[in-house]
């Protein structure tokens, strides 16, 4: 192992922990929503500070790595990807916190009919699976898994598009549900955003390993 491998392994390990932390946050936010568990929602909000702290620590380690090792080729792509992946993960952490805040803001659980019709829980589960698969792609440097992330994103986009119509129809039938409907569409939008963040991360993994830029391009 050469000297440059030490910081690479350290940063990789730290980012892997960041993945796990954000995954736990997202899972807790999902459970809090499913069970309308305000204590669990508070826990997510409290732990968000740790997510922010981890983000800063990884940013600093990446900056030090660039300054001290002047990385090139795969090492340079690695550290550039780390900075972007880190930023995207932190935003997913923000989303888990945001959904938890909705739970604290409301008096009673969201209308079950609305959440079921809009596939909120399946969407949440897909987002968590997508996050975990993205971590596997990063840990194992597996671009085949990274490429599968794009399909998940299409699925989340599809649910998002459908939800607008479903909620619109349901609110027309029963206008008293408009408050819940607004929360639910906000949650769905946030989950759809997670799909975009993970798609960005998958693109960064492919860039780092294969030196291919997929951003703004037709995917292959």
């Amino acid at each position, binding site marked *: 192992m*050469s*000297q*440059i*491998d030490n910081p690479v392994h350290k940063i990789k390990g730290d980012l892997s922990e960041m993945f796990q932390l954000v995954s736990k946050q997202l899972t807790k936010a999902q459970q809090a929503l499913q069970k309308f568990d305000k204590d669990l929602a508070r826990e997510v909000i409290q732990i968000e500070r740790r997510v922010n702290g981890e983000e800063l620590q990884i940013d600093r380690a990446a900056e030090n790595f660039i300054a001290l090792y*002047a*990385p*090139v*080729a*795969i*090492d*340079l*792509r690695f550290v550039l990807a780390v900075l972007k992946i880190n930023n995207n993960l932190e935003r997913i952490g923000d989303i888990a916190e945001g959904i938890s805040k909705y739970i604290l803001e409301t008096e009673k659980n969201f209308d079950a009919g609305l959440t079921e019709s809009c596939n909120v829980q399946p969407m949440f589960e897909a987002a968590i699976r997508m996050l975990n698969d993205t971590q596997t792609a990063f840990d194992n440097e597996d671009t085949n898994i990274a490429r599968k992330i794009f399909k998940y994103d299409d699925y989340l986009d599809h649910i998002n598009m459908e939800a607008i119509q479903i909620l619109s129809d349901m609110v027309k039938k029963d206008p008293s549900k408009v408050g819940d409907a607004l929360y639910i569409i906000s949650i769905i939008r946030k989950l759809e955003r997670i799909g975009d963040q993970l798609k960005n991360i998958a693109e960064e993994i492919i860039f780092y390993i294969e*030196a291919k830029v997929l951003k703004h391009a037709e995917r292959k």
Partner: protein
Amino acid sequence: MKYKLTSKEVHVWYGDFHAIKNVSLQIRPNTVTAFIGPSGCGKSTFLRLFNRMNDYIDGFHMGGDILIDDRNIYGKRTLVEELRKEVGMVFQKPNPFPKTIYDNVVYGLVIQGIRDKRVLDEACEQSLQQAALWNEVKDDLKKSALALSGGQQQRLCIARTLAVKPTVILMDEPASALDPLSTVKIEELITQLKEHYTIVIVTHNMQQAARISDKTAFFYVGELIEYDSTVNIFTNPKQEKTQSYITGRFG
């Protein structure tokens, strides 16, 4: 586009030792090309082929062709002295002669028989200007070159090379014996000089190659492993060996 330097299937042996193995590459005019690779990989041997500096090394023999423009410089009609006017060389350690700054710069012209003081004065000033040394030494031209700092001595050697009006400048680790500030000056100078000259530089300093060269050639155990634009070599090398070397994982 015409190439300034061309190597065609070149092999070099020192006795039985096969130092360069079937290297072909082409270098465009007015570019900086960096040769990189671990010690003993053949990059300096290959560099010295372009002004026939290996000719007098015991056991040296070669195969293949080295062309400058379209002339084979190992052809029978090549006059080595004329070749070396056209292809100047700067070495790792500054090697000024124990003479004045002025005499150092015009040395090549004097041994060509030029005695006209006005011509020599003009050449001296122009070469020192080009080597970014004029402002520092213009009032001390009669002082010994040995009194200059290492960085100044190296720029003086570059000025001495430029005075004979070469078209190609070969540099063998020209900044490796210099402090960081002198290194920056040499690097800036190389970048300026490529407007008028074709420059080939051997360097162990990876960042230096990345900063100053347009193309980079990576050599390993006598073979040319990869030759590409410097940006490609340092962001996405195609060969695993190149990547391992430039990322510091072997060599």
